[in-house]
């Protein structure tokens, strides 16, 4: 068992984990942050995507111990403290970018990273960005539409992503 300390959604957490525990399992089962989902556990579906030290990672492929001292962002940290949805979350709802919602946390975190790096992506850039995230429900179009609806808006999303 290993001691680890990390910052998740701006809150310090610590706990003991087995060396083999994945970051996703640690977030879900040790910290109770169950928004991070597991769709394949072999690094392809992207449902487990979280942001670690500013870069998106697959929570199923990273060990919790590797996140020692890291700054982790998960879907639970996207909305404001008072529950106000992030612009991208709001856009997902407005444009029907989710159906069952199982892929959604991974989609959102992948797209947050995209919009930080590319505030006004083209449609193709959005499609490329989520090409590592599988969604069986939507056919992706509504997700793409949701993203494009919050980019390039005056005073819009990019600033607070």
């Amino acid at each position: 068992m290993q001691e680890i300390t990390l910052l998740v959604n701006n809150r310090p957490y610590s706990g003991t984990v087995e060396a083999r525990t994945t970051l996703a399992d640690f977030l879900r089962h040790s910290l109770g942050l169950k928004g991070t989902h597991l769709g394949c556990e072999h690094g392809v579906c992207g449902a487990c995507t979280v942001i670690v030290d500013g870069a998106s990672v697959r929570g199923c492929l990273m060990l919790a111990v590797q996140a020692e001292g890291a700054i982790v962002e998960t879907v639970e940290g996207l909305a404001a403290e008072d529950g106000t949805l992030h612009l991208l979350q709001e856009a997902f709802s407005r444009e029907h970018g989710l159906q069952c919602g199982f892929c959604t946390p991974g989609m959102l975190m992948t797209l947050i990273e995209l919009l930080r790096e590319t505030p006004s992506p083209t449609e193709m850039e959005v499609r490329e960005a989520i090409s590592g995230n599988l969604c069986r429900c939507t056919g992706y179009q509504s997700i793409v539409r949701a993203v494009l609806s919050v980019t390039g808006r005056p005073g819009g999303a990019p600033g607070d992503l």
Partner: protein
Amino acid sequence: MAENGTRASGRNHAKSVGQRVTRIEDGPLLTGHGEFLDDIVLPDLLHCAFVRSPLAHARVDSIDLEAARALPGVHAVLTLEDLMPKLRSGRMPLGASPVGGQNKSTPFVLSGKEVAYVGEPMVLVVAGSRYIAEDAAALVNIAFSSLPVVSDARKALAAGAPVCRTELDSNLMSNFQVGYGDVDEAFASAAHVFEDELWQHRGCGHSMEGRGVVAEVRPGGELCIWSSTQMPHDVYYMLAGMLRIEQEKLRVITPDVGGGFGPKYCFYPEEAALPAAALLLRRNLKWVEDRRETFISSIQERDQYWSMQIAVDAEGTLLGLRGSMIHDQGAYAPKPINLPYNSVTAVTGPYILPAYRMDVDVVHTNKVPVSSVRGAGYPQAAFTMERMLDLVAVKLGIDRADIRRRNLIPADKMPYTKKLQARSGASLVYDSGDYPAAQAQVIAAAGWPDFPERQKKALEEGRYIGIGLANAVKGTGRGPFESGAVRISQDGKVSIFTGATAMGQGIATALAQICADELEIGPEGISVTAGDTARTEIGLGGFASRQMVTAGSSVKLAAKAVAEKAIKAASKILSVPESDLELDDGYVRKKTGNQSISLGELARVLRGAPGYAFPEGLEPGLEATIRWRTDALSYANACHVAEVEVDPDLGQVTITRYVALNDSGRMINPMIVEGQVQGGIVHGIGNALYEFMGYDDEAQPLTTTFQEYLMVTATEVPNLETIYCETLAPGNPIGAKGVGETGTIPAAAAIISAVENALAPFGVRISQTPVSPETLFKLINTARQASQPHSDSQS
């Protein structure tokens, strides 16, 4: 429909049905606060893993559990024998059937004597964590003797073929014929007869959330089961029949379900084993399917081999269709065999066909059992019919849209009775729809008439582009009923309870919209409980694009009854004639003047209080339950046009444009309908070009990760252009038809038609799905070689 006669003034709440209302489901799902199966936490929960067969067919010589049981953290390692004290039978019941009895084709709860497919569950391990449970599963030592394997359904009936399970005499599970008319005469008198062999391969459902079960042992000998299923009531009835427990002590709940798409329609061995183990150990248990388990144990579908002949007159008018079909059922049949029946009765689709005959063999193989995946037999039917029509068109030089137009059922023939029967014996009656108009609209939108010109230009530039189209009809809204209850609580909150199951399709929002309009409120605050056997006594669940029609109709009628009751009660309490009252945003108000009473207050009065007056002539409670009955289906239709570009040197297909029309009757929420159609099309694109569940000759699965089994990603699809028509369903009170499967059904047929069209210069005929680049490359090369002596055969 009759509207509530008491609503006449203009104060009523804005209507919600027909609007793109954002979904009431979204909030928790967007913020990471959904509650999917693996999110359920219970005190002292233990975790399970299954030991599964590594062989497609083998006798089990011995099972050694010692090492697994000795591992620290392991609570139990159980075989079927260990579970039997809690089970009435070691064999699974026939799901979704009134009898629920076993036959020689239903699976076992756990297999200990013989295994019949890779992935068959054999031993259940219970441990303190999933990690330890998997460690222990790896320590279970099983000695097998291999038995001969049936891998190819086409060889399963050959003389001397091995049987897929030694308890069977033959791999033939069932043989049946369907048809009508004088087929032989039709063929004898036809101007042209063409034939082809078609194959549509199996894929998986692959909801992003796999299956899973949680079993909670409650005080008083009660057992509560959560299952990620489309069918909580079926799980409930079947479990009640299987476990040594009284039905009333059992409860089945669906948490948030991360997609269904068919595979969660079945009652699975794991759903019986976990509850039995929980009763045995008196512990709370959880099992969550991992993706590898999905690949080797969740239902798959579509392997069918069709040998077809089509007869037409000189103009391409259909005279007859005949042939045989082999349906690969896999190792077991967890349900009555509806799929091959669906396929052969759906094949005639939206067309007029005078004579038809099919002979069907349903055969077992040593593969994962087969039941429905989105479309349930219909995609194969559409593929077969549409490919045969294309064959006629190409051979006779008739435009592919024209040949369809000549054979589509005209709108003035609606309702149209097909000369076929449903399995129940009822005749197939297409209730409504305008198929020729639908096709005309799509081909106009897609620029079909100009395409040959564009194609010619492209070819001059050395580019191979093609266009294809396909029509489909889907019987939706299967009965016999679905429950819908509407209740107003004392704080005025409106709740809906239904036997329909939410699995991501937005049923809660759609039901709330219907209810809201009857009650003259907004849908936002309405709560919907779908899939809880303690809240809804009887119900059926999610399959066959049925829930909007059936649950929607029940909720509509229940909400209407509640609205009428509220007016009646208010009339008594306020001493105002009913005709002067109306519902408005949570109140019953006098149309003129300001007398009013809230729905919450009415609910308090109607709940009753000892010693206080109760409104005369009214039944207690501000609620109503309706189980709207139907035996008929509503037929939704679709017409798709796909445009592709093919690189003949790589066999690579790019879908460049996709135009689809969908007519699912009244759209309760057009945004949700669009989501269903788009998601459905993309599933069909997967079936056409990417999704391949491979097995080798020993029936070993070859694709057990998403690296090997390709799902469509965002970069493979163009922006889909969708068109919607609303031919109202005459047979139900909301006018809706189902939409969950119509997007998928014609998609593969349209895409393959386009690919074949792009490769017309080579004369390639494509009779299968999926077509991988490799398959296509081979087809092109074979065609190239065949045409070489004549140098350039391109026109």
